[in-house]
């Protein structure tokens, strides 16, 4: 059902409060930029190559584990009593999986102009002149694709309620990636939280459809990132919601989305207590109770907000398509959170705990 929007003519515009004075949250320590926390052994190296950094995230032990789980899966699939005579399986090793990964990476580069990535007989080549497919045959590649298995065969991690976790088949990789992403870099003061869609158009009860987004159908993850570096993420399912998070009693007033945002930020805060952080969110996440709670933790937050969301000041509600004078500004302060209403092409509503309402750049 289409929502009715409130249209207020300019001449009938009710009086809106003027911009109040607001004392923003002052950071305890000055803002900082991001820096790397690489292992000590890296300091002894003359030059660090890309593959050495990439191997920090996909370590040899993970690749060995993936190989073992793939072999286990293949044996279960192929060596059943009725198939024993038809198939046999030569175990894959970690180097085989490295080649498989190389071909996956190679396929991402296929659209590159040929002058950078040489082409011969329709095949793009790295500089050594051999196509990646020469290192691993087509059948071998397809077999690995067919039997590739991340988690141990038939072992499904469970949620605290005893239900199978919907992303259990990739749980090992998710945990490792998140752990190493947090270990090797300290994000700068200004981090972002947003949702991300992972394209998947086949059948699954866990995918989310968002027709107006560039990726309209797929898995939804909440991510915390800083200038492109994904520091933490939180999977979310359309059927069972997000993964369970620890909720303290004073956070019960928050929405489910707010609790997950609070969960992401709390991890960052617990890990780097001596640093100050500001979180920027879009209107899907920003609510007044959430920003007030973050302010009590000493973390600044700012973002666009929706007028129908929890805690939005009633005196600033004007509707989505209201016609106001150009650059009209109004504001309100509630529980340490400032709300700004500003007329641009359309009314813009924002909340912040770290910026003054007065002052322009």
């Amino acid at each position, binding site marked *: 059902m289409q929502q009715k929007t409130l249209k207020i003519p300019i001449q009938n515009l009710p009086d809106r409060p003027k911009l109040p004075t607001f004392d923003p949250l002052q950071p305890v320590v000055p803002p900082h930029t991001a*820096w790397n926390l*690489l292992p000590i052994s890296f300091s002894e190296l003359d030059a660090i190559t*890309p*593959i050495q*950094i990439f191997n*920090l*995230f*996909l370590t040899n032990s993970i690749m060995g584990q993936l190989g073992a789980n793939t072999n286990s899966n293949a044996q279960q699939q192929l060596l059943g009593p009725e198939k024993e005579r038809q*198939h046999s399986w*030569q175990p894959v*090793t970690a*180097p*085989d*999986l*490295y*080649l498989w990964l*190389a071909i*996956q*990476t190679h396929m991402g*580069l296929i659209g590159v102009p040929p002058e950078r990535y040489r082409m011969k007989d329709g095949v793009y080549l*790295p*500089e050594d002149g*051999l196509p*990646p497919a020469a290192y*691993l045959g*087509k*059948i*071998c590649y397809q077999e690995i694709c067919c039997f*590739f298995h*991340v988690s141990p065969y038939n072992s499904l991690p469970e949620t605290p309620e005893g239900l199978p976790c919907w992303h259990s*088949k*990739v749980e090992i990789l998710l945990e490792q990636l998140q752990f190493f992403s947090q270990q090797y*870099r300290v994000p700068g003061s*200004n981090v*972002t939280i*947003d949702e*991300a869609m*992972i394209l998947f158009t086949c*059948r699954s009860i*866990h995918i989310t459809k968002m027709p107006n987004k560039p990726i309209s159908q*797929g898995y939804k993850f909440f991510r915390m990132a*800083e*200038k*492109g*570096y*994904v520091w933490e993420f939180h999977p979310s399912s359309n059927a069972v919601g997000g993964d369970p998070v620890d909720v303290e009693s004073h956070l019960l007033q928050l929405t489910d989305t707010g609790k997950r945002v609070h969960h992401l930020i709390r991890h960052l805060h617990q890990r780097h207590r001596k640093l100050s952080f*500001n979180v920027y969110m879009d209107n899907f996440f920003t609510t007044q109770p959430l920003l007030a709670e973050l302010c009590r933790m000493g973390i600044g937050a*700012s973002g666009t907000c929706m007028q129908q969301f929890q805690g939005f000041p009633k005196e600033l509600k004007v509707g989505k*398509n209201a016609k106001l*004078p150009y650059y009209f*500004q109004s504001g309100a302060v509630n529980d340490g959170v400032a709300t700004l209403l*500003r007329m641009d092409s*359309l009314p813009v509503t*924002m909340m*912040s705990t770290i*910026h*003054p309402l007065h*002052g*322009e*750049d």
Partner: protein
Amino acid sequence: MRVHPGNKSTNASGANSTILPGEGQKELDIPVIVDAYNQHKVGVDVADQYQTYFDTHLISRRNWYPLVYWMLETAVINSLIIYRDLPANKECTLDHFDFRLSILRDLLHTGSPSTMKISSCIPASQRITRSAPST
């Protein structure tokens, strides 16, 4: 920098009082809160932008494969950002394509010493025999 809205814009009459009809664009002050939001809100979007350049995502019927591709992409992008922030690479560093090509080359090098995995479920005449490639 603000562009003049179109004449059919819902708020064109209001904008015309600020940006004259002859002016295509004009510098206007914006509140601090809006400016900071525009500056810092792009953290996740930058990661998405990097991923779209050389995306390894393939179509698959298994519902967990997209997550594997996404994690592979995230690992590459995080590595790229760490690599660019190394003190030795501040002034002269690899671009995104060369970074991926370097990883590709080293992955092939890492994988090539192993003996080739031979599928025994296909006839010997169709098996792909391979030794370590000579460059």
